[in-house]
C-alpha cells in the first residue's frame, strides 16, 4: 500500500518541526498538556531508543511497528512500512538510526498531506449547505455546534437543520447548540421525516438569505441498507431546491474507531459521495491512524479534527501535527 522511500522522496526530517498546536491556540492549557503528554511518552521512548546508539537495531524497528499498529493504521500497512524500512536499511539507503524516524514520518506525511484541504465556504452558494453524516455517536451533532460557532464568529449567518428525528432528544441537543450560538434551528417533532425537515430548512435558509446551512442526520451504521437509502433521499430533496446542494457532505469519524472506519468511509462514500471528513475525539489517546487507509483508498479531504466537547474544540486538520502525534520526534 505505501510507497515508501521512492527516489524523489521528501527530505528526511522535513516534517519534524511541524507543531501539534495550531498557532491560534491559547488558554487551553489542560488540553494542550494532555495532548503533549501522550505525545511525549511515545516520543521519549523512541527518543531513548535513538539517543544511545548509532546502529539501527530490531528494537527500534519494533517500536516503530508498535507505534504504527497501535495508531490503528492497519497491520498490513504497518508491516509494509517496516518491511520497506528494512529493505532501505539493507540497501544502505538508510544508514543511521537518526534517519529512521524522519523517513517514516515523511512517508506518512506524504500519504496524508494531499487530504489536508481546508473547507472553504464558497460564497457563490447561498446558503452553502453542509450535510453531516456518520455512524452513531461519532460526534456529528457536537461538530455542528462547533462549526456553527466558527462560522458565526467569521461573520456568516448560520442555520441548523435538525435532521436527526430518530434518537431520543437529538432535536433538543441540536437546539441547545443553536441557542448557545444564537443560531436558528429548523426542527419538526421526533419521528418526522428527516428529508422533510431538511427540505424545510433549505427553503427557509434561502428565504432568509442564510450563508451557511448545516444539516444534522441520525447516526446510522453503513450496513443498514434502508437507512442509507434514507440518506440518499435527504440528499435528493435538497436538489429540488438547489441543484448544487449539498455543497459539502461531511463524514464524522470517531478517532477511536479501528479498521471499521474504512468500511464506514467506503460505504457512505458509495451511497452519497463524501466531500470531507472530520475526525473527532483526538483529545484522548486514540490516534486515528485508520485515516491513512482512507486517504490512500478514497482520498477524501480531511477538514477538521475535534479535540474536546466544547464549541472551541475544533481545529482545521493539519497533516504534520497528525503524523507527529503518531510518530513523535522529541
Amino acid at each position, binding site marked *: 500500500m505505501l510507497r515508501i522511500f521512492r527516489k524523489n522522496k521528501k527530505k528526511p526530517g522535513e516534517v519534524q518541526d511541524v507543531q501539534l498546536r495550531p498557532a491560534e491556540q491559547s488558554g487551553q492549557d489542560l488540553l494542550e498538556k494532555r495532548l503533549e503528554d501522550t505525545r511525549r511518552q511515545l516520543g521519549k521512548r523512541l527518543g531513548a531508543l535513538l539517543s544511545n546508539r548509532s546502529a539501527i537495531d530490531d528494537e527500534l524497528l519494533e517500536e516503530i511497528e508498535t507505534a504504527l499498529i497501535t495508531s490503528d493504521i492497519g497491520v498490513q500497512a504497518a508491516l509494509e512500512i517496516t518491511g520497506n524500512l528494512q529493505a532501505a536499511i539493507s540497501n544502505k539507503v538508510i544508514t543511521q538510526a537518526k534517519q529512521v524516524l524522519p523517513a517514516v514520518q515523511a512517508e506518512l506525511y506524504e500519504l496524508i498531506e494531499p487530504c489536508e484541504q481546508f473547507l472553504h465556504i464558497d460564497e457563490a452558494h447561498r446558503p452553502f449547505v453542509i450535510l453531516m453524516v456518520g455512524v452513531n455517536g461519532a460526534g456529528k451533532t457536537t461538530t455542528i455546534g462547533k462549526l456553527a460557532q466558527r462560522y458565526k464568529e467569521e461573520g456568516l449567518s448560520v442555520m441548523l437543520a435538525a435532521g436527526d428525528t430518530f434518537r*431520543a432528544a437529538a432535536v433538543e441537543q441540536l437546539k441547545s447548540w443553536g441557542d448557545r450560538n444564537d443560531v436558528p434551528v429548523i426542527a419538526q417533532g421526533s419521528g418526522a421525516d428527516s428529508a422533510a425537515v431538511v427540505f424545510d430548512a433549505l427553503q427557509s435558509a434561502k428565504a432568509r438569505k442564510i450563508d451557511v446551512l448545516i444539516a444534522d442526520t441520525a447516526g446510522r451504521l453503513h450496513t443498514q441498507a434502508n437507512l442509507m437509502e434514507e440518506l440518499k433521499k435527504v440528499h435528493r430533496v435538497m436538489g429540488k431546491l438547489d441543484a448544487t446542494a449539498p455543497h459539502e457532505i461531511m463524514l464524522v469519524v470517531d478517532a477511536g474507531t479501528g479498521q471499521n472506519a474504512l468500511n464506514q468511509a467506503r460505504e457512505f462514500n458509495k451511497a452519497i459521495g463524501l466531500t470531507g471528513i472530520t475526525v473527532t475525539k483526538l483529545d484522548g*489517546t486514540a490516534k486515528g491512524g485508520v485515516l491513512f487507509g482512507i486517504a490512500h483508498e478514497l482520498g477524501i479531504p480531511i477538514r477538521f479534527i475535534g479535540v474536546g466537547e466544547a464549541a472551541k474544540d475544533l481545529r482545521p486538520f493539519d497533516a504534520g501535527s497528525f503524523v507527529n502525534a503518531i510518530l513523535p520526534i522529541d
Partner: protein
Amino acid sequence: MFENLTERLSRTVQQLRGKGRLTEDGVRDTLREIRIALLEADVALPVVQSFIQGVREKALGQEFLKSLTPGQAMVKLVHDELVQIMGVQNEALDLRAQAPVPILLAGLQGSGKTTTTAKLARLLIEQEKKRVMVVSCDVYRPAAIEQLKTLADQVGAIFQPSTAGQKPADIAKNALRAARQQMCDVLLVDTAGRLHVDEEMMAEIRQIHAVISPHETLFVVDAMTGQDAANTAAAFNQALDLTGIVLTKTDGDARGGAALSVRQITGKPVKFLGSGEKTDALQPFHPERVASRILGMGDVLSLVEEVHRKVDQKKAEKLVRKMRRGSGFDLDDFRSQMEQMQNMGGLGGLMDKLPGMSNLPDNVKAQVENHQTRQMIAIINSMTPQERRFPDVIRGSRKKRIARGSGTQIQAVNRLLKQHGQMQKMMKKMGKGGMARMMKKMGKLQGQLPPGGFPGGGAGGKMPF
C-alpha cells in the same frame, strides 16, 4: 460481526492441512498469520502478543500434538486459547444485594451508555419484573438528561430528575435515597462520557462510585473501537474496579476485536451485546459461541471436532450433537420459509414487531420483501438435495453450476449462502420451534392487522434465551 476474522483464521488453518508434523517453522508461520488476522480484527496489540505467546508455548510444548496433523492441532490450540480468554459461560447481572441495587454505567463519549441504560431497564422490568429507577449524571452533554427521560418513559422505568446545575455525585446520592423511598429494586446510574486521560472527569466518576457503591459497574464500549480499547479499558478498570462489560453497536460489520481486548485486559466478563438502537436490542453475551464464531462455523469447527474425537471421544460426540442441532435449518427450510413469507406479502414493518425479529440483520429483513426472493428460490431450486441439506459442500464449481442453472451470477449464490448463514445463526438463537411459533404468529397477525400499521405496546421483543 466476527466473520472476517473467521475467514482469515480458517484460511490460515486450512493451509496447514495435510502437512506433516508441527515444526517450529510451521508454528512460527502460522502464528504470524494468526497475529495478522487478530490485528486486522482490531484486537489490541498487547492482547495479540500475549495470545500468540500462549499459543506458541503450548504448540511447542505439548507431547500429544505430535500424533496429530498440524492443522488440527493448531486449531484446537487457538480455540482453547480463545475460550480461555473469553470465558466459558454467560455471566448475568448480579442483583443479589440489598435493594435498591445500584448499577453504574461508564465509558467514553458516544459509546452507548444512555441507550444501554434504557435497554437494561427494559430487560429488568420485562424479564425480571423489577421495579427500576434510572438517573442521569450527565450534566455536560446538551439534552443528555432529556434523552434518558424520553427513553425511561418508553420502557416504563421510573425517571429520577436531575439538572445540569447539580453535582454528579449529589445527583447519584439523591437518586439512591429516592430509589430506596420509592421501593425500587434496581437503580441504574447513567453517566457522562469521559476520556480516561481526563483526570478531573475520572475523579468525578470515582466519586460517584464511592457515593453509591454500585453492585455492578459496567464499562460500555463500542464494538468498532480499535487499538485504543486497550488503553481505555485498563484505565477505567483501574479507576472503578469494573464488574462487567457491555459491547455496543455489534449490529454493524465491526470485526469485534475489542471484545477480546477488553475482556483480556480487564479480566472482566462481557455481559451483554448491544445490537441496535431500539431498547430491545440487548442480548446476554455467550462467550463460548464467540470462540466458535471466531474460529469459523464450517471447516474449522469440524477440524476441532476431529481433534476432539481423537483426544476425547465423549466430548467430541457432544460437540457434534450440539452442532447438528444448530445447523438444523437447511436450505430447504430456508426456501419454504421464503415461500411462506412471500405468500403473506408485504411484511416489512411487521417483522420488527415480532419477538426476536428486530435483531435480524437489515439485509435479511429486506430480502423478505425484495424481488430478490424469487431469484433466491430459483437458486435453491437449482441445487441438489444434498447441497440443500449440507450447504457447506457448495464450493467453486458447484456454485458455477448453480448460478448457471438459476440464470444468476455467482455473487447471487454467495449472497444467498451468506444470508442463509445469518438466518441459521438467528435460528440457533431463537431455539427450537421458535421459527414455527413465529410464523404462526405472523399468520395470525396478518388477519387482524389494520392497514397502516401495528398497534404499539404489546410487542414483547424478548429473546428466548
